[in-house]
């Protein structure tokens, strides 16, 4: 019984051209980044990557010595220095632009803001638009219980969140492949760097082929996007106007990100869903903004947010009075 409802919701998202907009945004951004990578590749040809990285390390060490930056920045900078040092020690050229690395990097770069924003755009009006356009009066007076209607909307939203991620990955590869080296899926990658007491912990570093590493990063990102979809659904249920729902979604994503950067002392911030959102970053080795945020903590936190948001959505949606 739920399948025809999912079919309806899918048709509505497609006819509203929401997904077309999302794909267009992804294409534009990926094309732009590809171009910059392509330029870098051309310049890099006659460059000595070792010298470049050594210079990066030196410049960061200088900044640290001057000591005018706050502790969070300093901490992540020290971690970055240690990471780069690791590449120097093992003679591995990092970030050499290839199409597979571009796809892998996309998970991190787009994962913490762009993809959640796009899923937010898709999801924020899935209920509120019906309310704003008055179509909920028909939708909810058909012989289908309200929880089924909302379940269909959630399933559809999860489907489109998944499609957004897949579209991003496919576009990242297909747009960059004509310009960057295409191969290298089996190149070794190093993940699992972590920082404890200011020192780089390399015991946990694992070497994985790039394709496996990419799959893990996308898997984590996928989980984060499903959570964002649940939160977008909640906002869409709570707000009558689509604009208010989308606005709140954007504000909480951007505001939360800013908050975690400027007030690292306010430790309660680690319970915000935004703090746990860049799962792919943390997996790669970027230190989370607050202490005590292990990967397991982040996944658990996101799961809790998803469950609570979904529960509130269902309770409110099935019980409320629908006025004009």
């Amino acid at each position, binding site marked *: 019984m739920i399948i*025809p*409802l999912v*079919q*309806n919701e899918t*048709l*509505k998202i497609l*006819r*509203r051209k929401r997904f077309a907009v999302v794909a267009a945004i992804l294409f534009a951004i990926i094309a732009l980044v590809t171009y910059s990578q392509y330029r870098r590749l051309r310049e890099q040809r006659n460059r000595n990557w070792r010298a470049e990285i050594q210079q990066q390390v030196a410049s960061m060490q200088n900044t640290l010595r001057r000591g005018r930056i706050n502790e969070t920045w300093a901490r992540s900078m020290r971690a970055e220095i240690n990471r780069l040092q690791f590449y120097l020690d093992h003679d591995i050229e990092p970030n050499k632009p290839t199409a597979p690395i571009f796809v892998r990097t996309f998970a991190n770069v787009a994962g913490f803001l762009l993809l959640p924003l796009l899923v937010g755009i898709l999801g924020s009006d899935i209920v509120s638009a019906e309310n704003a*356009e*008055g*179509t909920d*009066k*028909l*939708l*909810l*007076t*058909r*012989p*289908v*219980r309200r929880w089924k209607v909302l379940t269909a909307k959630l399933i559809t939203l999860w489907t489109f969140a998944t499609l957004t991620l897949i579209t991003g990955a496919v576009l990242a590869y297909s747009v960059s492949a004509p310009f960057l080296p295409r191969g290298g899926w089996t190149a070794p990658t190093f993940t699992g760097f972590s920082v404890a007491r200011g020192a780089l912990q390399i015991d946990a570093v694992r070497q994985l082929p790039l394709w496996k590493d990419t799959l893990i990063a996308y898997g984590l990102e996928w989980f984060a996007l499903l959570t964002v979809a649940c939160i977008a659904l909640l906002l869409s249920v709570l707000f009558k106007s689509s604009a208010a729902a989308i606005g709140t979604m954007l504000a909480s994503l951007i505001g939360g990100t800013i908050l975690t950067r400027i007030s690292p002392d306010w430790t309660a911030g680690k319970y915000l869903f935004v703090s746990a959102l860049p799962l792919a970053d943390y997996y790669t080795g970027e230190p989370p903004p607050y202490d005590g945020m292990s990967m397991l903590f982040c996944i658990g936190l996101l799961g809790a947010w998803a469950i609570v948001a979904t529960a509130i959505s269902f309770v409110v949606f099935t*019980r409320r*009075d*629908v*006025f*004009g």
Partner: protein
Amino acid sequence: MTPTQPTLTATNLTKIIGDKTIVENVSFELQQGEIFGFLGPNGAGKTTTIRMLVGLIRPTAGRVTICGFDQRRQFEDAMRCVGCIVENPDLYRFMTGRENLEHFARMLRVSRSEIERVAELVSLAHRLDQRVGTYSLGMRQRLGIAQALLGDPKLLILDEPANGLDPAGIREIRELLRRLASERQMSIFISSHLLAEIELTCDRVAIIHKGRILREGTVRELISSRREMELRVDDVARASAIATEHNLPFRTDTDRIWIAMEEPDAPPFIAALVQSGVNVFHAQRRTQSLEDMFLEATGGETVD
């Protein structure tokens, strides 16, 4: 369903929001094949009542039974018997008429042939593949009715169905509704603030004002009896005397007299006037306005 079971029963429906009573103790019944008019000024509680009938609003007290199913506890069974338009015929403007009908047909699990049938009924087949955003209000009203007719429901609930239709369209829809009631034994609930519309379409009517039902009865009892004849005459005094002789209630101004009477009584009365030398310049039937009726029913309280 037994023939005597009402299609729709509303029992003591009440909706209180905060300390404001929007609808108070509203009860009525709809029999099979009956067209029921729900008449009241804007803001009387018509739409709130309709929203309670179709489950959009939870009543503070009272219950709704549709085709014998409790609308709260057996929502899906109850709603399978209902087609409705609540307030405006709001459909998905970014989809075509056909896509809209397919959308609701999927929810009802009825076949695609239903779509052709209902589109034919409301004369919309030729515009079905255009986006609803390009439709006029009248066409959206037709599409709304088509959507309500999907799955051949036993009960049709229409909120102000005449809205946005031109006079020809209103007549066409009225005839369709009458046909559905008589041929398919459909029960039809229509709300309106237009007395004339209700009078022409409905069998029975309830008048709602400030959330309460003031009167309920057949159209004849409630509306037709409230008609009067307006005559312009040269001698109002003598005309009044003749009306008194005929035992007819009346009121006058300088050159007109309004007499409460049924249509068949008009020719003998006018003949009597002419015989006693009163010149009649103008004679016209006039329906007492809804406002007059409310003034009377509420004892002088104005309609707001």
